[in-house]
């Protein structure tokens, strides 16, 4: 059902992603979660297939595909491990930002290595004092000669400490969004350090750390776009990021529905398999219906974004809001259908629940999604 309406080529992309997820990721997702392993080798294998820079331009090593192609791919990969796929999508978002807003020198310097995952990237916007109110960020970037000197810290950075390339939103000007610029900071730059690795409920196959800048000097040539464009660049990155995260939720829900269905056909109580219970049949039907609805919203938003339609931002926000909420509920119900077994770490469904819970929070909380949608509706003339 996830292939309906796709072109032959998209079905091929989807097939590769499903096969990769089943063979290279699913067998390891529990281990990566329980041992908190960042699966560098597996991600590099994925990059060899073109998954490192899916919507980055081919001339700098990307695959040059559309946002819809990307959504299809991440949804399929996520069935193998939602946490790892979510990191891959963040990495892709950073690579795209450099490709789209970086000078040719910057693009040639960073994009090929990011597309091959020779180097890994992190997106640095959130700070201890600014989450939803992202534009109030405080990390300062003072111009000194041909360098910006950064001071401040970022919080909850996915990949932080293990990644090589940091795309950082910092304040070069006055208050508010217009004072924010975006610079690329490389690991090893003096003045760049990291906090302790956070202990999380899920997303354990990616390390999360604070990123700290103490008189960290970054060449002005590392800036993406112009001064004051940083917030705009960050939000443009997030439009795609939201579709990607929603796609990861779709994959987790898809896998969970399959697991629940399989369990219902095996588990017997009261003399018959659970699949004979009308309540459970109806519940499964609802889960599948809401999954399909979520999928349509996400794919529709992806198309709007790639066509640069005026309603794209609102649609991306709606898709992220709807799909992440629905898919979490679907995974949670799939866990419930497993009974006590659903609560054991030997069964994958609990990991999908834990992994996608955070999708309702990051890349813009689902509350912020409502703010964006409402603003869009109320300023419509």
């Amino acid at each position: 059902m996830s292939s309906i309406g796709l072109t032959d080529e998209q079905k091929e992309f989807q097939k590769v992603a499903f096969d990769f997820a089943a063979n290279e990721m699913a067998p390891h997702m529990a281990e990566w979660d329980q041992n908190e392993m960042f699966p560098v080798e597996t991600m590099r294998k994925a990059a060899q297939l073109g998954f490192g820079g899916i919507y980055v331009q081919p001339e700098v090593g990307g695959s040059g595909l559309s946002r819809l192609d990307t959504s299809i791919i991440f949804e399929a990969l996520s069935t193998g491990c939602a946490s790892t796929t979510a990191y891959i999508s963040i990495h892709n978002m950073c690579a795209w930002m450099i490709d789209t807003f970086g000078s040719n020198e910057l693009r040639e310097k960073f994009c090929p290595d990011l597309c091959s995952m020779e180097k890994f990237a992190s997106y640095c916007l959130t700070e201890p004092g600014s989450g939803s109110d992202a534009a109030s960020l405080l990390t300062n970037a003072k111009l000194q000669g041909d360098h910006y000197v950064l001071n401040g810290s970022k919080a909850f950075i996915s990949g932080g400490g293990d990644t090589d390339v940091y795309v950082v939103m910092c304040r070069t000007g006055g208050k508010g969004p217009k004072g924010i610029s975006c610079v690329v900071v490389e690991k090893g730059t003096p003045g760049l350090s990291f906090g302790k690795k956070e202990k999380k409920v899920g997303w354990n196959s990616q390390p999360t750390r604070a990123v700290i800048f103490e008189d960290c000097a970054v060449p002005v040539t590392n800036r993406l776009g112009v001064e004051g464009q940083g917030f705009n660049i960050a939000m443009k990155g997030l439009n795609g990021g939201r579709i990607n995260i929603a796609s990861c939720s779709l994959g987790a829900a898809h896998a969970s529905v399959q697991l629940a269905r399989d369990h219902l056909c095996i588990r017997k109580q009261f003399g018959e398999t659970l699949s004979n219970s009308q309540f459970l049949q109806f519940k499964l039907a609802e889960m599948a219906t809401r999954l399909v609805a979520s999928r349509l919203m996400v794919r529709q938003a992806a198309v709007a974004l790639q066509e640069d339609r005026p309603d794209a931002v609102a649609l991306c926000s709606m898709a992220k809001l709807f799909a992440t909420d629905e898919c979490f509920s679907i995974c949670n119900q799939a866990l419930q259908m497993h009974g006590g077994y659903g609560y054991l770490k030997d069964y994958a469904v609990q990991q999908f629940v834990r992994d996608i819970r955070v999708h309702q929070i990051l890349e813009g909380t689902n509350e912020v999604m409502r703010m964006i949608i409402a603003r869009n509706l109320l300023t419509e003339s």
Partner: protein
Amino acid sequence: MAARVLVGVKRVIDYAVKIRVKPDNTGVVTDGVKHSMNPFCEIAVEEAVRLKEKKLVKEVVAVSCGPQQVQETIRTALAMGADRGIHVEVSGKDYDTLGPLQVSKILAALAKKEEASLVILGKQGTFASEVTIDGDKIKVIREIDGGLETIKINMPAVVTADLRLNTPRYATLPNIMKAKKKKIASVKPGELGVDLTSRLEVLRVEEPAQRQAGVKVETVEDLVGKLKEAGRI
């Protein structure tokens, strides 16, 4: 250097799908069921592409017999690295009765037409676990009951691929896109001078008999007694 390798790729029900027999017992359910390339054909394609990468062959041609849908399977072979495809159009009743005899005639005719030095197929029968090209001969290592046997054969030759021959590659996103531009030629069996009339008639298709429950016995004497009772010894 051997010029051309022909690889047969068959579109079959996906190996992970549970096969069901049609209610009228005339065959298995195929409508709406997930199909993919026969895993042994994937291994055959992989081997052919590796030979090309080692510059031992110049061109890899993927062939499939069947209705329009088999073009998907040919495209997968192209995405893995085959250079072009040939779709032998067989549909309807002809496709239902298409058997090994007809397919082998088709492949033989194509191999002649395309001047293929080597035909690699997914296994049934003797199979290779290693293939190299040595001058104008092919060296094949095959697994037999006693161990490994190395044989040298002249070209043109037909080699079938075993599980242990290689691990097929994933198609990469760029290769999937490049495959769109590769050509798939269509040809009818009649043009190859092949008669598709089947020598076989399928009378009935049934599921294998359900496994019967066994009987547990306490001692070896009991076992011998039961076997004698059943007329087995």
